[in-house]
């Protein structure tokens, strides 16, 4: 099925209209010696019935979180997604719309993005949010690039508690630029703030911290921010949006730029993407921000209306002088997050966060009662923690797998000193009985 609607008869009619004897007449600007003189070597076309059967087969070869109990997190979480999110965000009028450059034809998506920007500010306590970036890691990398641009300094200091993928992406972004990447070690599961007090350089543009960090622990972001500011550097926090249902918001914590992976806000796991890059900052930096921004204005009759604004920051106007090369936002994912936040409301988000926290606390207590220990028992955690196992991690993952449990992430892959630990996440979806089953398997 090629979804072409022009019939063979119309095709002939149209060829005649343009004065072509055959299609070849229209293709001749591609010189013969540059042509492909055979059909593409890809599989033959499938009718819809066969296509669905083939894709159904591929899908069923995956053992997704539908048929396993998921305690796997590490940057992507199995949260509850209300049915209204799927339904509203999949409306064809949103799904198949283009970027809202033509404001009069795009008031629906522009208003939705303006509401998104507002709700992200309400969620984070930050002053400005853009209309979204690709995903968590690139949003954080854009924050680092913006910090270099704002401060004119060169060093980016990154806590080792930041997601290992994000740190790898930061390294890739900063290489080839006049920039230096360096890391702050962890101490007892938290960023070593003593190191920050003494080791920051004059050339440090920003300190990057993730809270809750990759090990699940809640950082003293305000303290870290104070050290950064005392040094004339910016403080960048990567946060978990659900955690803000009960945790202090970046806007209260000496944070200049706050970014996040927005996947927990109503976005399915879908094997790692597409997700949502949340990007917020203080309003003083707005003209240095990357990505799309929607602003409120009026039309010629004085009615409230919305349009893309401050576009002189962007690539299609500024070309090599743009604040970023980002062209698109993640419109549909921003829409999903908006519907999610509006559907949950303040009470729902608090309840979801509290359930995550309660269940993680319950799990920690049960693990300890079963004779297992938390790797860093003194450090506070939100919905994820490092448990030290008594048997090889691989063996336990295999056993859990046989019982349809995804027990967690073998964190030793990224932190060799934690090779006997498992990073276990809970969400509001996990039940007490499921947690009890997990503890039995980990024993």
């Amino acid at each position, binding site marked *: 099925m090629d979804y072409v609607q022009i019939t063979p008869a119309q095709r002939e009619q149209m060829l005649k*209209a343009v*004065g*072509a004897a055959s299609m070849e007449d*229209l*293709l*001749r*600007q591609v010189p013969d010696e*540059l*042509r*492909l003189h055979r*059909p593409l070597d890809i599989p033959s076309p499938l009718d*819809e019935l066969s296509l669905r059967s083939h894709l*159904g087969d591929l899908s*069923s070869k*995956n053992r*997704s979180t539908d048929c396993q109990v998921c305690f796997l997190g590490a*940057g*992507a979480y199995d949260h509850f997604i209300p049915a209204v999110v799927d339904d509203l965000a999949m*409306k064809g*009028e949103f*799904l*198949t*719309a*283009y970027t809202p450059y033509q*404001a*009069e034809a*795009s*008031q*629906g*998506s522009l208003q939705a993005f303006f509401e998104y920007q*507002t709700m992200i500010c*309400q969620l984070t306590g930050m002053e400005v949010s853009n209309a*979204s970036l690709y995903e968590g890691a690139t949003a954080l990398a854009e924050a680092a690039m913006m910090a270099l641009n704002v401060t004119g300094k060169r060093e980016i200091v990154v806590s080792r508690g930041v997601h290992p993928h994000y740190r790898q992406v930061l390294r*890739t972004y900063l290489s*080839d*630029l006049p920039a230096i990447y360096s890391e702050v070690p962890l101490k007892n599961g938290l960023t070593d703030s003593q190191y920050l007090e003494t080791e920051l350089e004059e050339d440090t543009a920003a300190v990057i911290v993730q809270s809750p960090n990759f090990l699940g622990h809640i950082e003293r972001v305000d303290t870290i921010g104070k050290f950064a500011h005392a040094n004339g550097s910016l403080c960048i926090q990567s946060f978990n949006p659900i955690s803000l249902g009960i945790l*202090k918001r970046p806007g209260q914590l000496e944070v200049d730029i706050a970014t996040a992976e927005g996947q927990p806000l109503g976005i*399915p*796991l879908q*094997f*790692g993407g597409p997700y949502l890059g949340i990007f917020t900052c203080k309003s003083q930096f*707005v003209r240095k921000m990357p990505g799309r921004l929607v*602003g409120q*204005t009026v039309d*010629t009759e004085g*009615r409230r209306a919305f349009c893309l604004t401050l576009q002189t920051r962007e*690539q*299609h106007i500024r070309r090599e002088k743009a604040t970023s*090369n980002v062209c698109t936002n*993640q*419109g549909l994912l921003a*829409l999903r997050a908006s*519907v999610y936040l*509006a559907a949950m*409301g303040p009470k729902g988000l608090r309840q979801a966060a*509290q359930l995550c*926290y*309660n269940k993680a*606390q319950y799990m920690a207590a049960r693990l300890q009662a079963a004779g297992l220990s938390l790797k860093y028992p003194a450090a*506070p955690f939100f919905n994820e923690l490092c448990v030290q196992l008594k048997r090889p991690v691989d063996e336990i993952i295999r056993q859990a797998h046989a019982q349809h449990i995804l027990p967690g992430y073998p964190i030793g892959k990224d932190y060799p000193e934690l090779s006997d630990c498992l990073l276990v996440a809970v969400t509001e979806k996990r039940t007490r009985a499921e947690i009890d089953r997990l503890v039995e398997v980990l024993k």
Partner: protein
Amino acid sequence: MSSTPEKLLFELSTPGARAVDLPDSDVPDAPLDVTYAAVMDLPLPEIGQLDLVRHYTHLSHRNFSVDDNFYPLGSCTMKYNPKVNEWAAALPGFSNLHPLQDTRDAQGALALLYHLRLFLQEISGLDEVCIQPCAGAHGEWTALKVIRAYFKDHGQPGRRIILAPDTAHGTNPASCAMCGAGVITIKSRPDGLTDLDDLRAHLNDEVAAIMVTNPNTVGRFDRHIADMAKLVHDAGAFLYLDGANMNAILGIARPGDFGADIMHFNTHKTFSTPHGCGGPGAGPIAVRESLAPYLPVPQVVRTANCQQPDANYSWDFDRPKSIGKVRSFWGQFGVLVRAYAYIRALGPQGLRNVSETAVLAANYIAQRIKHVYPLPFGPKEDEPMAANPCAHEFITVPRAVIDRGVTIMDIAKSLIDRGIHPPTVHFPIHDCLMVEPTETESKATLDAFADALLAIAEQSEKDPAPLKEAPAHQPVRRLDEVGAARKPVLRWEPAVA
């Protein structure tokens, strides 16, 4: 389109209203240390489920979309987004798969990615594809990092200059800047093709690559592309192809065959994945063998593994020369499922028919309007389009209409009132409309668009005033965009009592 204003969510908020509920806690409530705890509820809106549904339904009525409107938007390839692809992406085995599950749990997903890799390799005529980049611009940036890594590895770290024609997409120079590369603009000739003499004059041992779009943004296939490639290769640099216009050449010509060394695809253009009001996209890149060692980690591979006979597909992290990671996890999987489904539905004949029909549709529209909307790079006035055809898109500069005091923006806004999304405006040259109809529109729709453009031109002769006032039948009239930028209002705030 609904002209009834829609309140903001925050103005619909009613304290105590709720759209969803959650289970009660089945474990004891745990107190959180006040050092970390939020002191009050978030100031998010509170709204009931029906009102929430109505709000977004109302907003959906204030939007153009491909499902509702024709979008002849040049270089954006706004083709139909098949519904079966949405069905595919929502299959639970795809949508509920955690990215860090063991590869044994994800064989279907990995097989899909691996075969998509092979399809894109074949379509590009290049040796290895990386499916990870998040969008076209991200693909460009990734590709430039790969080129940079190649030169560093080959003892030529001084190659930091990227050449780009003056008709290049804005992302091209912006991506260069993000890699710390300098950009030099290469002139176009009067016929819209790249000026090879100007290119030759700028090639030296500091040049890493030239970024070209072919067919280019004025809708011309550059027949000198192979000569250009030879010049660039002789100078020790690479030819980068911006794949924005691949919809014109599927199965007809392959970038690898006409000299490109590295390119990106836009799956949201060529392979029908929906634009979603501006994303998500996906921007896989394809490279020649010499550049493959530098691609991002991990790569999806197929292995014969006797220890795990069921696990044929896996991630290869062992690529010591790789530029590293370019995003978290593995790629825009949900988008790539749709692209895969599309390619499987079409097959080789279907893809070729896409490009043939896209080219025919563009030439047909051009033919119908060119007596009033002339093509600066088309046939002579009295010749048919076949005398000097365009590719899948064309640009027109309607000088006669403009001379009557009607701007390109007036034409654009007048089209909106006729239910048609305007073509791309003022790009790549001032005062132009860039028209790309795509292959999925019916002849009736193409005719209606040509009729609308002709009617606008006719109106401009009789009385241009209504065109200056357009749009008159949309949710809003023209906006004060200058005011929006001067005093930015970027979020709603409660009225101060």
